């Protein structure tokens, strides 16, 4: 029984050691080459700023995190709803899906300046709208795939049981799409955080992690800016890890993915 945690630790050890070595090398490089703080602050200096500003960083994290979370939730709901419509209508599918795939490949978050123009300068709506849009297309494309790309043998079986479209949806399409939804969330969760940060670079309130990074760099407080970057990394990782945990709960032991690989 102790085998699994032990291999997990053994698997994590090399990247942790590598990360530690990288930080040590960074610290050493700053000392040895006498790099100026405005060029590259040492990790120890960033950590000092991080602890000193922890309250401010936490507040900024809440703002960015809330924007990401709201966008993630609404985008997921809309994406799932739309994918059901696409699965129902072939014409709609042929119209929307190629567009959705194309939009997934371009950095649509640049639209945020357009959205900023539409709402008041202190509004969080443009940022949330941007996150929603990014998440929406990721979820839409993946869940629609899960609903339509079903096993043909299973489809024949259900038809042989006289199952109608509704029963086929409930018994086959929806369960088949569940792993696709969690795959989408694993992509969308970090993407929502990234979009929330980057949206802040395009103006609006100076309250989130992204805008704090920009404003601190503008007044040459590089170490402080890096401290906010650290906060951003933590937030992004948190979103990702939560999505991984959700996937583990919904598909215990990764059963579905294992079976799909085998067949």
């Amino acid at each position, binding site marked *: 029984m102790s085998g699994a945690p032990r291999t997990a630790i053994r698997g994590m050890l090399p990247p942790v050691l590598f990360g530690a070595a990288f930080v040590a090398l960074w610290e050493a490089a700053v000392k040895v080459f006498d790099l100026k703080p405005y060029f590259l602050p040492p990790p120890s200096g960033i950590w000092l700023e991080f602890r000193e500003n922890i309250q401010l960083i936490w507040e900024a994290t809440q703002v960015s995190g809330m924007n990401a979370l709201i966008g993630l939730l609404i985008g997921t709901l809309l994406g799932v709803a739309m994918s059901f419509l696409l699965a129902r209508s072939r014409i709609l599918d042929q119209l929307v899906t190629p567009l959705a795939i194309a939009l997934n490949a371009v950095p649509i978050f640049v639209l945020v300046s357009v959205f900023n123009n539409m709402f008041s300068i202190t509004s969080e709506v443009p940022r949330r709208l941007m996150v929603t849009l990014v998440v929406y297309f990721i979820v839409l494309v993946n869940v629609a795939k899960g609903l339509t790309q079903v096993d043909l043998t299973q489809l*024949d079986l259900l038809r*042989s*049981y006289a199952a109608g479209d509704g029963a086929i949806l409930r018994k*086959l399409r929806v*369960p088949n799409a569940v792993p696709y939804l969690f795959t989408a969330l694993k992509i969308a969760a970090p993407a929502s955080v990234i979009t929330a940060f980057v949206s802040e670079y395009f103006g609006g309130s100076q309250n989130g992690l992204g805008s704090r990074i920009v404003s601190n760099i503008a007044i040459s407080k590089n170490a402080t800016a890096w401290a906010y970057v650290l906060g951003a990394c933590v937030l992004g990782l948190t979103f990702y890890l939560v999505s991984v945990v959700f996937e583990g709960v919904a598909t215990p032991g990764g059963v579905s993915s*294992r079976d799909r690989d085998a067949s």
Partner: protein
Amino acid sequence: MKAVEVRGLARVFNAGRPNAVDALVGIDLEIESGSFVSLIGPSGCGKSTLLRLIANLLEPSAGEVLVNGKTALRARLDQDYGMAFQQAGLFDWRSVVKNVELPLELKGWDKLKRRQRATEMLDLVKLSEFAGHLPWQLSGGMQQRVAIARALAAHPPLLLMDEPFGALDEMTREHMQGELLRICGETSTTVVFVTHSIPEAVYLSTRVVVMSRRPGRITDEIDVDLGTTRSEETREADAFFKKITEVREALRSDDLPGRGITDIRDIEGR
């Protein structure tokens, strides 16, 4: 009573287009209740198409199909038949017992009755102890047994099987053939069985229907009189080998004279 009656059946794929293919032409076939009929022939002879037409998973281009005296559509809606394919097609998010319950769920049976019947069926295929397992935890042969249990769960009078043992190794395959005969004997189910293995067709069937391609049609029907109870000894009996030879020659005679030559011409013409 006839379990299946097929009259003047034809099916054209891509009808009306330049790439139209006559998958089946002029098929007449009668299958008695309680018999075990194999459809055998080379790839592309339309044997799976014929099975899918009987199952009403495809619509005929001409002719008619009656299952238990009803139209194929009515028979499908009444769940008068069970079906098994080359892929077991188990739902990997459902446990073994819940897979067997699936056709009963769609028939609207209540939970208790469903579980009771599914447990009986797993008993029949000797997989009771795996009821709570998930499909990927089972071997290919075991998955196929679950698929058979599922096909028979609603006690349909007819079982339609499309190369169900095609993906299994020879040992498992022979074991499964014996199991299938035992199960169908116990449940007195009529079986229509698509295969391209001659020994498999002969061992299982009371009648072997030989088909040929381009266009797909029935060229011969061979009764197999090896008795109703067949065992491993049957596989070594002289009568068994004689039947295998007979079916093989029926398949070959169709390929050699006229048709073989037209095939060669086709190739040379290119």
